[in-house]
């Protein structure tokens, strides 16, 4: 396609070349999967949102250090606990030349609540959007919500006129076999890049949007090609042979190879994702265990025995090749609310574990099925295997059920009826705030109030529930921190979860590429510089 057009319009291209800045830079990168469509309100998933974040923008945006900075909104403040006043940026243009204004904001929030949207939860935080003038809006929330603007970084704004003209006023609806959401295959954002061609699962081409409001972007890239490459080996090979400039993720064990190879390097960094093991603490009898009639995890001695059986340093050294940060908390250092003083992992002490188990009446151990994804987190399955062999040493026989993420999540999450007894999960709070962790992981399961939805083992403590509510509403940072610390301490003492580590970000890039490796594993083209 490109080739042909090159052939046909050599003259035209020469003309464009003359018009654009002398430095036209190409950049190619690869990821293990593809974005599921282009609809900004389509799938609420890190990679898709990350990719679309180059094309669309929210009211706010995270910078290279995960600090929240203005994007389409220039200023925001709470005029009452439940009402935010937002000043919109002026002179912003969509890729099609339309102006960005308050109508687009109202429209976009409404669109998140349409049938096909996967952003209902995020958009639903705002119960009402009021247009004050063309560049001012009010956002109303149901409860006081200090973290609202963090959430807004991934809620993208669309052009009302464009959407209406193309029948894309509803989020792409996958259930209709015949109707293809226009916005799913075409894009019109305000971001610095626009998608000029796309073949799903094969290739997506971006070109620089010259009309972007921010002329100070770091990037010098004008043309980007993105290719999904599923196999890790193929992906690394593509980088090693310089067919692409950047790939992610890179298996941690290949870092050495990348660093030794000419012209490429491994990019390592801490990710804000915490990997942990969870235990079913609510059922009276475990679903998948040799222990009948009771639930051993209800006994804190058993939970402690598990905690002390895990050698986090060995996992770090061998499986993660030194690239993980063993963790004693359920949040990473980058997350608002993290307290280094509390971050002490349980000590590795298998003898203590055996003693505890014997005390609890399980001197001979027991058998337990462990659920594990095998393509979701860095070396997820290997971590589970290592944990299984460590637990084997204290007499716990683990039947490991490692599955692709689709099957895994289908089983262990709410829609599978939390069908698990012991599992591995990873969590990055989307709002980069501890409250998200309290609400989703530490709060008792409460489907009605959408709380504890990812607390798969239903760890439950009334005070923690209470703290969750308080943290959500507390605006005084010191008080808030104290509440957070209290909550984390309770969970730690009760061994509600078994945190393992924060996994590393593992990317690879050519030596001539400068880029920003953000802790939430989002790859932002705004920071790519090709030398």
């Amino acid at each position: 396609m490109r080739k042909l057009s090159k052939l046909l319009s050599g003259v035209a291209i020469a003309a464009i070349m003359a018009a654009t800045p002398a430095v036209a830079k190409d950049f190619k990168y690869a990821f293990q999967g593809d974005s599921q469509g282009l609809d900004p309100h389509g799938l609420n998933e890190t990679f898709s949102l990350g990719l679309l974040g180059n094309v669309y923008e929210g009211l706010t945006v995270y910078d290279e250090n995960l600090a929240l900075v203005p994007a389409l909104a220039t200023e925001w403040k709470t005029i009452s606990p439940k009402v935010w006043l937002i000043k919109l940026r002026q002179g912003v243009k969509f890729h099609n030349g339309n102006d960005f204004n308050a109508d687009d904001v109202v429209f976009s929030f409404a669109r998140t609540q349409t049938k096909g949207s996967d952003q209902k939860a995020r958009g639903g935080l705002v119960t009402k959007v009021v247009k004050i003038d063309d560049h001012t809006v009010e956002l109303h929330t149901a409860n006081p919500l200090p973290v609202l603007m963090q959430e807004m970084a991934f809620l993208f704004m669309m052009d009302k006129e464009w959407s209406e003209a193309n029948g894309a006023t509803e989020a792409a609806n996958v259930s209709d076999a015949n109707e293809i959401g226009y916005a799913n295959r075409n894009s019109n954002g305000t971001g610095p890049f626009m998608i000029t061609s796309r073949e799903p699962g094969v290739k997506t081409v971006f070109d620089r949007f010259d009309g972007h409001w921010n002329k100070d972007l770091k990037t010098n890239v004008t043309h980007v090609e993105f290719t999904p490459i599923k196999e890790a080996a193929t992906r690394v090979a593509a980088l090693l042979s310089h067919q692409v400039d950047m790939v992610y993720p890179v298996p941690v064990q290949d870092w050495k190879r990348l660093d030794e190879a000419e012209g490429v390097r491994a990019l390592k960094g801490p990710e804000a994702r915490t990997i942990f093991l969870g235990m079913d603490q609510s059922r009276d009898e475990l679903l998948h265990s040799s222990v009948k009639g009771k639930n051993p995890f209800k006994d804190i001695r058993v939970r402690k025995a598990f905690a002390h059986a895990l050698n986090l340093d060995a996992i770090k050294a061998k499986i993660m090749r030194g690239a993980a940060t063993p963790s004693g908390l359920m949040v990473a250092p980058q997350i608002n609310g993290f307290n280094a003083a509390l971050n002490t992992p349980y000590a590795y002490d298998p003898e203590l574990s055996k003693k505890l188990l014997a005390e609890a009446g399980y001197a001979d151990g027991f058998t337990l099925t462990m659920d594990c994804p095998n393509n979701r987190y860095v070396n997820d399955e290997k971590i589970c295997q290592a944990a299984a062999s460590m637990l084997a040493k204290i007499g716990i026989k683990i039947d490991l059920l490692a599955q692709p993420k689709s099957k895994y999540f289908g089983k262990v999450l709410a829609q599978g009826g939390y069908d698990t007894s012991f599992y591995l999960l990873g969590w990055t709070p989307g709002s980069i705030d501890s409250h998200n962790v309290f609400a989703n992981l530490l709060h008792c399961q409460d489907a009605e109030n959408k709380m504890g939805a990812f607390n798969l083992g239903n760890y439950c403590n009334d005070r923690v529930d209470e703290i969750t509510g308080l943290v959500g509403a507390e605006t005084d940072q010191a008080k808030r921190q104290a509440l957070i610390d209290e909550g984390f301490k309770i969970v730690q003492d009760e061994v509600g979860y078994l945190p393992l580590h924060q996994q590393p970000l593992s990317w690879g890039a050519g030596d001539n590429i400068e880029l920003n490796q953000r802790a939430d594993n989002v790859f932002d083209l705004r920071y790519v510089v090709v030398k």
Partner: protein
Amino acid sequence: MENQEIERGRIADFLHRLNDNDIWWSFWHSPVAVLSAALALFMIFISVFASVIAPFNPFDLASLDLMDSSLPPVWQSGGDPRFLLGTDDQGRDILSTILYGSRISLLVGFVSVIFSLILGVGLGLISGYVGGRTDAIIMRIADVQLSFPAILIALLLDGVARTLLPKDVHSEIAIYVMIFAIAVSGWVQYARTVRSMVMTEKVKEYVQAGQVIGLGQFTIMWRHILPNVIGPVFVIGTLHLALAIIIEATLSFLGVGLPPTTPSLGTLIRIGNEYLFSGEWWITIFPGAALVAIALSVNLFGDWLRDAINPKLL
């Protein structure tokens, strides 16, 4: 005493016949056949006695120490004398794992071949002998199945089994699911071969002689036709054994095979494949070599057997 005499007579009789047998003769005069058979037998031997030969039991999770993981073979710097061929990412001894893994691969191969052989030969016999509508139905099913390569069918069956069967028992039954999947994907070739041979055999006069005696259809199929069509079936069986082992490895490579806690050769190669670029080549190369050694020796032997019995077979 008398029985012993008779027995001895029978053995002598057998040896004499064997000596007289062209296949046996041509076997001993084909270096490739002898070598490949020897290699195959060696691989079978060491995998059957894996638990005796292997220095470790890699399936015993409690014996693994993560700190021993990713060690190179002894002759490389950093090697540990306990682990001749090095260790994998979980600290399993590669040599032991290869022995145990070969056992699984061969077990899966043999049992699935026997399964599909019985299924295929049975259906082929019925199809060829009974003919008519039964034949048409069986062959139509075979056609449909033929439009999907074995790997796809095995992939499907495995997927279905994983979904339908209770998850707790999954790792225990994974190997049976795999055997079943490979077996079901392989019966067509036997059935077709047997069918076409039965069609030529059933019009032969010895079959009619059986009918004249009054023998039932089953007796004629079992006693008369089957022994006459079974030769090529063994040839296919041998070649299919190699194929089954490769399919198992491929499924394991694609991640739908045996769980990594009880790795087969294919699972090991898959694990090792992730370490190829990081220089830990021994995790892939040694199991890969073992797999190729098994498949190649079995294939070479089967190839020779085919030439000796019926070169027209594929």
